[in-house]
């Protein structure tokens, strides 16, 4: 039988070691921090993706809470069904329901089911782990891939500088559903992430959270730099951290504006922007996106 490891002494390790994520994986860290904040009394519904695959390699499972995987597209619908069953049994006061998936299943494949879950008002927290491409199937671009990133389906070359479509603003799509709580978080700021999960789970009704998680394999970054890169994305203004509660937006300010190059040059998915064939125009455009975010959310100043 399984030996009891020292993890159990600490009580906050509901996502066990021995999962098969790559070294330096931001998503596995975020999943652990989410469960640490959420505690034992949760039912987790997972969509298809990296997180599902590396945490449930048969016959093993890294989860120490009830955990379900159904399909790529119906995570929110399955979670809604579980919530409805808990409600009719009068157990919704004791157990919280979390639905989670990657950016592909959230922004592209499962968006319809998520919208339906929001619209019907189910008491579910939906978490999107945003690593900005379909990493599990081999780094194809998704609706959340940022401008000019290299993926296997948006390769830079003579006629292209990488992904040429904007990153879909899913948090604002969630806000448009007028749900009680929407937040963005980053794996680089664990205290902020912890607080937002606890806040979200204290609120009744549909909630949406999007967590930025660097992927060393897909982004071509050093595994040791996962946290640094996540923090740089926030401090450049490319990934604004904010929460919208009952229509009111609160932002996490950044101390000073960091040029986007500092974030981009650590990742080989943006290497073509620094090559001898140029990329100056594209870099300026990415800087404009960051500047627009800083202005739109008021990231700098009091």
């Amino acid at each position, binding site marked *: 039988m399984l030996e009891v490891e*020292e993890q159990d002494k600490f009580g906050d*390790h509901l996502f*066990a*070691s021995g999962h*098969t994520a790559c070294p330096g994986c*931001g998503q596995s860290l975020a999943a652990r921090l989410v469960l640490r904040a959420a505690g034992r009394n949760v039912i987790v519904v997972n969509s298809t993706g990296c997180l599902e695959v590396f945490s449930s390699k048969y016959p093993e499972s890294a989860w120490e809470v009830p955990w379900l995987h159904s399909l790529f597209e119906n995570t929110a619908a399955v979670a809604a069904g579980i919530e409805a069953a808990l409600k009719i049994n009068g157990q919704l006061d004791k157990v919280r329901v979390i639905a989670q998936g990657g950016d592909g299943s959230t922004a592209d494949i499962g968006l319809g089911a998520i919208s339906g879950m929001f619209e019907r008002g189910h008491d579910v927290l939906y978490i999107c782990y945003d690593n900005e491409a379909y990493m599990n199937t081999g780094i194809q671009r998704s609706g959340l891939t940022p401008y000019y990133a290299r993926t296997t389906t948006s390769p830079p070359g003579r006629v292209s500088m990488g992904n040429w479509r904007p990153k879909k603003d899913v948090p604002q799509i969630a806000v448009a559903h007028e749900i009680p709580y929407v937040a963005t978080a980053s794996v680089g700021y664990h205290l902020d992430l912890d607080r937002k999960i606890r806040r979200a789970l204290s609120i009744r009704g549909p909630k949406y959270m999007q967590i930025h998680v660097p992927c060393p394999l897909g982004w071509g970054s050093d*595994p040791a730099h996962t*946290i640094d890169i996540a923090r740089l994305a926030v401090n450049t203004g490319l990934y604004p951290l904010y929460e919208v509660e009952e229509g009111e937006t609160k932002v996490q300010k950044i101390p000073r504006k960091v040029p986007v190059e500092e974030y981009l040059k650590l990742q080989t998915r943006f290497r073509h922007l620094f090559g001898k064939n140029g990329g100056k125009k594209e870099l300026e455009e990415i800087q404009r996106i960051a500047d627009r975010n800083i202005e739109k959310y008021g990231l700098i100043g009091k």
Partner: protein
Amino acid sequence: MKITLGTVTHPGGSRVNKTGSWRTAGKPHFLHQRCIACDLCALSCPEGCIFGTGQKTYYANEDYCKGCGICANVCPVEDIEMVSEEDEHG
């Protein structure tokens, strides 16, 4: 012969999978000199294999450490360094 119905897995059963064998570059060495017990290394470890209960008590469970180096990188007082395992056993 006993047949198990369905695909039965146990909670936390992934712990039988000792991912420490994945390490290629090196492993963290906790110097225990300047540690301020901020817990950042433990909270930043994707494997959840760093433990400690106070200043200068932190260590990594090498059965699971994949050697990514995040802990050494986030330590604010530079009390963790990555060391080659070949040097140690060499």
